[in-house]
């Protein structure tokens, strides 16, 4: 069981982002997923649940779709109408005492219909690691579709 104040560190290439554990998620090993063998399309792999295919996307550090091959797990966000996944190079549940999150809203227009993709940052010295806003992240992933 996870603490609502805990965060998952998701590594995408050379960059890491945090996901609040309160958002609800499932971590799947790559070998339990059906890999998209076609070079076409945005989906990296699918998790098959009772004949439903839940897509997982592979994103780079700028959150654009990429077809990196060195990912090991996918984190599926519990969201409606169905879960949607993000393939990650590494995932780590950070101890609560380790992360103090500062509020952060990027200035400017939000990029998704549910607002900004980030709602906070973990600041250590001059370094800031962005914290995903789970609903906006899920909306963004769902907007990627299958193509």
């Amino acid at each position, binding site marked *: 069981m996870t603490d609502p104040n805990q965060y998952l560190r998701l590594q995408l290439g050379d960059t890491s982002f945090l996901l609040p554990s309160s958002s609800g998620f499932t971590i799947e090993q790559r070998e339990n997923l059906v890999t998209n063998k076609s070079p076409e399309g945005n989906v990296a792999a699918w998790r098959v649940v009772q004949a439903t295919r839940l897509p997982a996307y592979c994103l780079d550090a700028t*959150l654009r779709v990429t077809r990196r091959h060195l990912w090991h797990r996918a984190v599926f966000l519990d969201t409606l109408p169905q879960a949607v996944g993000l393939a990650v190079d590494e995932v780590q549940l950070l101890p609560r005492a380790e992360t103090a999150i*500062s*509020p*952060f809203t990027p*200035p*400017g227009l939000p*990029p998704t219909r549910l607002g900004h993709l980030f709602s906070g940052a973990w*600041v250590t010295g001059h370094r800031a690691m962005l914290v995903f806003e789970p609903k906006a992240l899920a909306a963004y992933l769902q907007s990627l579709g299958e193509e």
Partner: protein
Amino acid sequence: MKKPRAGPRLHSLEVPLDGMTLIVPSAVVAEVINPLTLAPVPFSQPWLKGVMGWRTLAVPVISFEALVGMPEPASPAAGKIVIFYPLNGRSDWEFYGMFATAEPRPQALNHSEPVATGSELPDLPYIAAGLKVGGKLMLIPDLEAMKKVFYPA
């Protein structure tokens, strides 16, 4: 060119940018720091250059040149980051940073500085007015207009 009456001194900072100079009250500036590595913010506006940690806060850093549609300096790392207090009415954690091409310089204005006329001002958004300080045009940023673009309703 209008010449306003002399009055009490207003302590200000001259903020050098690429191709223009801003002047702001010293009271709106929290600190000036050396540039450091920023964390990029995916899908942000082109004028938002990234976010950095400062005094336990996450502070976005902007390029004013990019905000007004001018070319950006090739190497912002050669200048400074000016950290501004939150804009009027915003939360106390909403500091923001702005790249400057060099160390800002203090200026004590006494209200005798000529106000630039419309024809002397560049045709740029987010400029409220201009002053001629020692014969040099300094632009006063329109903080209210910046607030509207930073935090659209």
